[in-house]
């Protein structure tokens, strides 16, 4: 009766209760309790208790909690309402973050979105979040450059569709796009590799990552999202709310030890030299057998070419021939420490999180390392019933010490990998006592690696701020206006020193009156600023069985960059690394600005939570397209149909949830900046006088005169944006209480009007013409399969998750008369990464073997040439046609993650398999060239190349003259490896199929009861490992490391640092 009275007088009533888990009966803190149809809500406390005021007209409470089934309960006459929550086994009400930060139920989507939670992101303690995506999201491919601290990784989603533009996704953090790609491109053949700016993010700050794979998913972001979007949400106090505490402090510390994953395999039989003769100044290992050598004097004892066998009194003891392990000695054990604190807080009106983190990494090469400091704040505030606000701010400081890679003369690895086994690189002195800038080294052009580590210096520091503030106004239940403004600004300062006395430029020989000279100091600043403004109005309203969910908005962004660099050459005082200490300086300056203004709208209509239809449209106006041609509109449409909502399929056990989806979208991509007319450019940097041979260009201004040259690319003002059309279909099926789940997608992407530098015959006066031409397609299948083979009532669960991706992309056409276009690294003339008509993109193209009609290698049949013995008799002929040597990207890849959970224990292991794809291994080529490779061990057994023909190329006509099957014996020695194979690019191409145990994480959450009556909420300890095992036929190196830039990454590997193999552990405490 009392209740009735209350209703009668229109007063609110107070309802209380306790919430427990249905499975184990434990009290559940943090459960959200809301009154249906109102904004009134609360959460349960630590004891699972709640108190809520229910208005007179309301009679239904909604209980919700992550991972549990959201349920509505009628209050009826109860003032005490205890409730037990059931597991949401289907997770069909899962809410995901979609474009523009709009949260949508996953079941409403007509396209594929995949999410990672906190433990999947930071479980294995990858320092770079892009690396933790590998294998965890179907369709995402992550290519790594090297194991150097801060090394770049390159992410593509569903393959490459742009020939020369970026194929990397857009990163959005807390609702605002941020810069993610490397600050600038450096020729990797020369300097050090700048880091991609994803490295600025602290994985520990991240709550979830949502990957919008296709263009439909990312359509609202416009031009820059053509390659998909990685939406990152940082922690914001939800954890505190979930734990039912006002403030939750999480401290996380971890340590890992890093070792080199793989070293080249070396021969150990032959000594330094050439032609079987000991030569202590040779870069080759083509000398005599080490076991036949007598004692000899080392290089240092007679620097100037006296007979190395000659000994005299007063000299140090002669060198005893032996085999050294120079590689193993050089690399050390690296380590990584990470420490982070997160303070999360949640009240009725606000929730926020303040995080701080520090990462210290010491590389596997002594002087390399990285220190990263992060701080971030992310908060949400309800200002009133109608107004709310949020703030997200991130500050980072990343300090990286590294070494140069590639064919840079100062790359220490150039000697480490190839040092003759008879040469004691580790223990010999590397500098002269009387002058430390006078190095000892058996090689002339390259630096002694130990000397290089001591004297050369490569440092890159980035200070960055990014963040945004937003305010929301909700005048009506069905309408919400949001404005968000964001800034991303960073400054990278680099300081690179190639020391006085380095390399061939200035080694100097005091005996010849030559003191150490040369050297170079580079000092650069790169500043980037991105201003983002975003205004949206959203509408949500139900009309009977129909629901409408719409947004209209405007986005504006303006990106400016400023680069200043100084290069000083000819250092006077060794060790004083200041530009004033150099004899000549060149400066470089570059400014850029780009602005895009976009208007967009999207509407989703659903019918009976069964059929969902979304249409979107966006119009972009782009500064860097020609006037009169810079405004573009792109539409998309997608639909989802939950067929298990149909009457005859509803409420059955076999397939409780099934959805099919389909989508179509168009999207554009603009061209490069300032690419609409041919200008003059200063003869500095790329346009300086270079030779293709020498290390240093002839730069201007010179002797007071600047110099300019007409750009060698023909530009015109009729560019259109490249157009990307995407079709996608898919299905999401959950069987037997979600014990088996299959999510399948098929996509087809067609990109026309590619904007690229169409090559021209140089005799036209230009090397290329920047214009629209060409068409690429990319299609593929993605399967996400989840199986729970075992789930016992005792709490044991075994879960298997598989991500399978197969992508086939194809260059359908380039420009009329253009068969191929080079992309990526262009440093090698003999081999390159190309877009080639009718082929996957990219492919490796270069000189092949000379082959007969049966595709057999043809060996040289001439025993003599011009009366002299032919050194190449019986060896493959040089002069084969240039051809396609292999495609770079894998045929398919798959990951298999097994997770075992029991009580507080969790064991997760991920195996990653990648099938196919080729790489040009400069390292293996060089190992052979120098005679250092294991395969060069047997030089004394005559061999006949099998399955080959013999013949020769007629010098006059170039015609191939065949002389039958090969039966010629020869010795595989210096001429074979150093000249013949070295000259044939095809000999260096290898399949990079691999199977890798990529991640293992073992963690233990200590039982709550251990901490009752303490300030501690929970403690978990964990052990983890990365890249623990590798199975591959790829020789000498880690097939996942490569030396390249941009779209050519993965095509080449050239004397870089392999990835590391790590294991470690840590501790996470919350209180």
């Amino acid at each position, binding site marked *: 009766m009392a209740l009735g009275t209350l209703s009668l007088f229109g007063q609110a009533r107070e309802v209380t209760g306790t919430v427990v888990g249905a499975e184990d009966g434990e009290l559940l803190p943090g459960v959200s309790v809301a009154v249906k149809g109102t904004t009134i809500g609360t959460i349960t406390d630590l004891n699972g208790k709640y108190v809520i005021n229910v208005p007179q007209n309301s009679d239904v409470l909604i209980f919700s909690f992550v991972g549990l089934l959201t349920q509505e309960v009628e209050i009826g006459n109860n003032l005490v309402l205890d409730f037990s929550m059931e597991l949401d086994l289907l997770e069909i009400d899962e809410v995901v973050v979609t474009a523009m930060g709009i949260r949508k139920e996953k079941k409403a989507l007509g396209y594929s979105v995949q999410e990672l939670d906190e433990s999947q992101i930071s479980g294995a303690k990858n320092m770079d979040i892009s690396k933790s995506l590998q294998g965890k999201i179907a369709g995402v491919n992550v290519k790594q450059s090297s194991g150097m601290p801060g090394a770049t990784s390159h992410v593509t989603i569903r393959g490459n569709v742009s020939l020369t533009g970026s194929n990397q996704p857009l990163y959005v953090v807390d609702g605002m796009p941020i810069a993610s790609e490397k600050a600038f491109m450096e020729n990797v053949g020369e300097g050090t590799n700048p880091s991609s700016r994803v490295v600025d993010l602290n994985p520990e700050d991240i709550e979830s990552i949502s990957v919008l794979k296709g263009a439909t998913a990312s359509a609202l972001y416009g031009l820059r999202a053509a390659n998909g979007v990685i939406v990152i949400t940082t922690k914001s106090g939800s954890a505190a709310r979930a734990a039912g505490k006002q403030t939750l402090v999480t401290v996380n510390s971890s340590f890992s030890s890093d070792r080199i994953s793989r070293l080249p395999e070396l021969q150990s039989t032959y000594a330094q030299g050439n032609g079987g003769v000991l030569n202590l100044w040779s870069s080759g290992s083509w000398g005599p057998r080490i076991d036949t050598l007598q004692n000899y004097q080392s290089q240092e004892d007679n620097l100037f070419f*006296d007979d190395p066998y000659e000994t005299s009194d007063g000299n140090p003891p002669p060198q005893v021939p032996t085999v050294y392990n120079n590689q193993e000695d050089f690399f050390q054990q690296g380590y990584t420490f990470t420490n982070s604190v997160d303070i999360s807080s949640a009240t009725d009106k606000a929730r926020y999180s303040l995080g701080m983190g520090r990462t210290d990494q010491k590389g596997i090469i002594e002087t390399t390392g990285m220190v990263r400091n992060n701080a971030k704040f992310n908060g949400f505030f309800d200002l009133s019933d109608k107004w709310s606000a949020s703030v997200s701010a991130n500050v980072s400081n990343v300090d990286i010490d590294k070494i140069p890679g590639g064919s840079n003369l100062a790359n220490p690895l150039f000697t480490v990998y190839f040092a003759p086994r008879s040469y004691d690189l580790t223990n010999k002195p590397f500098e002269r006592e009387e002058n430390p800038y006078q190095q000892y080294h058996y090689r002339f052009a390259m630096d002694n690696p130990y000397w290089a580590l001591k004297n050369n210096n490569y440092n890159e520091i980035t200070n960055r701020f990014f963040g945004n503030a937003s305010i929301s106004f909700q005048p009506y239940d069905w309408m919400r206006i949001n404005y968000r403004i964001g800034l991303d600004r960073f400054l990278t300062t680099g300081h690179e020193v190639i020391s006085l006395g380095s390399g061939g430029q200035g080694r100097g020989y005091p005996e010849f009156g030559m003191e150490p000279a040369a050297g170079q100091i580079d000092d650069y600043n790169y500043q980037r600023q991105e201003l983002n403004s975003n205004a949206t109005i959203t509408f949500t309203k139900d009309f009977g069985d129909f629901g409408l969910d719409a947004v209209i908005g405007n986005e504006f962004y303006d990106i400016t960059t400023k680069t200043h660099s100084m290069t000083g050459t000819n250092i006077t005082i060794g060790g004083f690394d200041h530009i004033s200490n150099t004899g000549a300086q060149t400066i470089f300056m570059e400014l850029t600005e780009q602005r895009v203004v976009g208007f967009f709208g999207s509407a989703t209509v659903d019918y009976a939570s069964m059929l969902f239809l979304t249409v979107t449209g966006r119009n972009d106006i782009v500064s860097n397209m020609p006037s009169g041609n810079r405004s573009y509109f792109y539409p998309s449409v997608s639909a989802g149909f939950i067929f298990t909502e149909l009457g005859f399929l509803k409420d059955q056990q076999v397939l409780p949830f099934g959805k099919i989806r389909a989508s179509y979208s168009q999207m554009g991509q603009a061209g490069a900046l300032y690419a609409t007319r041919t200008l003059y450019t200063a003869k500095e940097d790329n346009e*300086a006088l270079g030779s293709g041979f020498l290390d240093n260009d002839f730069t201007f201004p010179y002797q007071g005169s600047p110099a300019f040259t007409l750009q060698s690319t023909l530009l015109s003002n009729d560019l259109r944006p490249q157009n990307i059309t995407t079709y996608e279909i898919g299905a999401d099926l959950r069987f037997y209480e979600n014990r088996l789940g299959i999510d399948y997608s098929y996509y087809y992407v067609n990109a026309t009007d590619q904007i690229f530098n169409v090559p021209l015959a140089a005799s036209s006066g230009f090397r290329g013409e920047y214009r629209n031409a060409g068409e690429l397609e990319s299609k593929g299948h993605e399967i996400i399969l989840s199986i729970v083979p075992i789930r016992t009532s005792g709490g044991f669960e075994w879960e298997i998750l598989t991500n399978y991706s197969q992508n086939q992309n194809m260059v359908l056409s380039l420009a009329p008369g253009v068969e191929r276009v080079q992309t990526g690294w262009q440093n090698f003339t003999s081999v390159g990464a190309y877009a080639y008509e009718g082929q996957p993109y990219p492919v490796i193209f270069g000189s092949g073997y000379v082959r007969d009609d049966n595709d057999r290698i043809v060996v040289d049949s001439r025993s003599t040439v011009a009366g002299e013995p032919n050194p190449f008799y019986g060896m493959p002929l040089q002069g084969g046609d240039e051809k396609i040597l292999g495609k770079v990207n894998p045929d398919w890849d798959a990951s298999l993650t097994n997770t075992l959970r029991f009580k507080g224990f969790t064991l997760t292991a991920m195996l990653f398999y990648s099938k196919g794809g080729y790489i040009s291994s400069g390292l293996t080529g060089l190992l052979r060239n120098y005679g250092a490779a294991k395969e060069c061990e047997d030089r004394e057994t005559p061999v006949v190349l099998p399955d080959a023909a013999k013949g020769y190329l007629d010098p006059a006509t170039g015609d191939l003259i065949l002389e039958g099957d090969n039966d010629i014996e020869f010795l595989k020695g210096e001429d074979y490896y150093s*000249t013949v194979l070295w000259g044939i690019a095809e000999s260096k191409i290898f399949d990079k199929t691999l199977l890798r145990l990529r991640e293992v994480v073992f963690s233990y959450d200590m039982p709550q009861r251990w901490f009752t009556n303490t300030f501690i909420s929970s403690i978990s300890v964990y052990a983890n490992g990365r890249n623990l095992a590798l199975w591959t036929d790829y020789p000498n190196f880690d097939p996942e490391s490569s030396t390249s830039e941009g779209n050519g990454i993965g095509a080449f590997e050239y004397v870089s640092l392999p990835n590391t193999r790590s294991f470690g552990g840590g501790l996470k405490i919350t209180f």
Partner: protein
Amino acid sequence: MKKYISIFSVLLLMLFTLSCSDEIMDEIDTDPNNPTDVPISMLMSGCTAATPYWVTGTTLAWYSSIFVEHTCGAHGQMRDADRRANINSQLSENSWAFQIYPRLLPDLKIIVEKGSAGGSEEGKWIDVGIAKVLQAYTFLASTDTWGRIPYSEATLGAENRKPAYDTQESIYSAIMNLLDDAISDLQKENISTTGGEDYIYGGDPDAWILAAYSLKARYANRLSNVDPTGSAAIALADAANGFSSSLDDFTFDNWANDLGHENTWFQEENERRHHAISVTFYNILDEVNDPRIPLFITQVNGEYVPAQNGTSEEDQAGTIYSRMSEHVIFATAPLPIMTYAELKLIEAECHLRKAAPDATAALAAYTEGLEAALFQAGVDSSAVEAYFAQPEVLPADAANLTMEMIYKQKYIHLWPYGAVEAYAEWRRTGYPTMTNPFETPRRFPYPQNEISGNAENVPDVTPYNGVWWDDGTED
């Protein structure tokens, strides 16, 4: 509340439309790094450095040096070239497709257009003349290197993306006229002086006129196989107006002691170290006890150890073979493009070959040329005397002067910096006899860039076919 919404909307709308007007977007799209136009002076500085750098002093020279056996490839690409393992389209890629055609020749053409009648800097005739001399030299050295090349349709940009290849005969004839034009331009009234941006002659029109005539003589002489007497007469007439002493030499002498601005051969010898002394070259010096040996060539363990082209060992370190000496190869060593000494040797040859041979005049020119060459090499006078005492070097009787003596002295004089010219001269004269067991190419292969981008026009020849002035055919 409605009021706020409408104010908010109006403000936003203003911001959005103002921020993307065509005018603002055009301004944002204006490249702040690169100008739409530059004056002649800013192009000239690049061209007077680029011509010696790209045509005379880098890749073309290094390969030519190996082919003509001035040096022997002791390492890497040069050893491969010596063993003919890499005589393919990549050999020419840098020179043709990155340097000469897309960069150097367009800039020279713009200078000519800007300074000539109707151009934006009309009346800068000295610059026009200089640019024409550099164009002439670049085109001739290029046709000598490759044979038929695009000339009349070259560097037209969007007007002609696939230029036709002109015959070498027509290029030679056109360039002789171009040099005449240059000479006449250099004599015209000039509106402003040229100075520091000309790294070769500092803007001195008279010096450029001498260079133009001297080049005319060199390239007229090149046609000796096509027209023995006529070419001699023309060469002699032009030589008379050419250099009058070594001080007039057409030389790039503006290297500096800092990275990148050092003599290109010095950089190559310091960093890459591809070249050893060729046994062919050494023997030619050695057979007449040439005083330049100790000046030019280093010793290994107290001995001269030249390398046999085609079969030498790998020796980047220089522990096996003799190398070019620091006397010749140093950071600021001048890079001669054409010298007075060479001009005199051309005269000597033409006096012997002209319709009415004049041995006395030939010997006089030979002696003068040889003296200039020895002086340039730094040979002291007593050594010159001893050298001249040998009749096989300097015959007492003019009648004993042979073509081979002239060729030989030119071959030595062009070592090492005149390799491109020496390679052309070997093909013309057959001197010296190559000792590399592998056949010597008679031209460079066309670059891949042309084969890909201009396939219909690229001549179908092999590097072992002679060019027009070599064997009389264009193929």
